[in-house]
């Protein structure tokens, strides 16, 4: 029931501190959680990807994560410096359904917080939890090294409960991946992100 109560909490907090206040709150909570999870090191991408598959990385708290090994990120020399990862189901979807079947529909604050985030930070959120989620992943990535290189996380695309999609052209440009590739991925997945080695010299997209 804690998740359903959280939805009421967001509504209450939004009334008291405004949508921007909720965003600041969520971002701080994302940073705190990521910092409590500690550091991780992997010898290379194969060992990191096995850890993802077995649910051993900090990212695994989100649930089952699929490594899209056919979507490697290359640097200017053609070396693999990252991959795309995806969640079949948004972590907030069960909560949306639980709210639907207990108290009715999601409060207006959920949409307002997401909209404020899209307008003022990054146009990628489809629900208020995306705000927390993006910051959490960014902070977790900093604490993980692959081949001694810390990672960088880029949220690429999201699909909401009602079919609404968001694609981050800004982040796709950074890793040289075409939005159409990601659009196709959204048929199967609800959240797609990239992990790449921080500081890698990437070939930017058109």
């Amino acid at each position: 029931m804690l998740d359903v109560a959280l939805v009421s909490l967001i509504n209450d907090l939004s009334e008291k501190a405004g949508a921007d206040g909720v965003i600041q709150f969520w971002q701080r909570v994302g940073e705190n959680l990521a910092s409590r999870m500690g550091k991780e090191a992997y010898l290379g991408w194969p060992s990191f990807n096995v850890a993802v598959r077995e649910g051993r990385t900090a990212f695994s708290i989100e649930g089952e994560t699929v490594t899209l090994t056919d979507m490697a990120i290359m640097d200017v020399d053609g070396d693999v410096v990252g991959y795309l990862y995806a969640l079949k189901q948004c972590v907030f979807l069960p909560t949306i359904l639980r709210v639907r079947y207990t108290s009715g529909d999601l409060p207006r604050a959920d949409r307002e917080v997401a909209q404020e985030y899209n307008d003022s930070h990054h146009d990628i959120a489809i629900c208020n939890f995306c705000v927390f989620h993006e910051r959490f992943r960014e902070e977790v990535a900093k604490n993980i090294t692959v081949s001694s290189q810390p990672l960088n996380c880029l949220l690429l695309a999201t699909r909401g409960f009602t079919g609404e999609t968001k694609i981050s052209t800004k982040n796709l440009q950074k890793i040289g991946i075409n939005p159409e590739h990601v659009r196709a991925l959204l048929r199967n997945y609800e959240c797609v992100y990239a992990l790449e080695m921080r500081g890698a010299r990437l070939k930017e997209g058109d």
Partner: protein
Amino acid sequence: MARLMESNPFVEVATHFFLEDLADKVGIQGLNNYLIGLAKTLANHMPEEEWRDWKEFLEAMRAGDTMLSAFEDVVALTDCCMVTRHSPFERGWREYVKRVGSFSPAHKKVAEFYNKNVKPTAVNSLHIILQTFRAAAAPRVKVAGKSVRYAQIATVWPDGQRMVASDAERPELLKKAGISETKLRMLLRDNAEVWILWTEK
């Protein structure tokens, strides 16, 4: 309502951190007030219910068709004595201790405040939400035209910590539940919560 799908434990872990951040801002007493307000709001958002008689209500309790059993698997041991086999917060807590580490002391401290100032049946912050929710939800459920009433007898956390209603209150509560003190101790070995529901005659 039927059985709800389970939440993603990540959302629950995030909520724990949300509450911990709140405790830093408003202190333990403030968090206690917040949790109580939160649970009452949640209960008030759920539609009121009416059941023809106690038998129909108990069937709804078992099936998860009433708000009083929407978030937990409840067994009706007697007509009035309800037993929750597993805490609805156990999955989230297990994920927290597996991925993050030991539970923040804020969750325990706020329960101590609640136990001292409200009633002594919470092991941690989550029980404040659950027990306040039940207390606020019960009057919204009518059985044969009468509002349901609720009282908590005992709470056990997965790590074995338990809180039981005070010596002064317990005999009356056990009488209403229709179980003995010995039976209560037996129930506390492998259940998460023992509570009672009734209507005034």
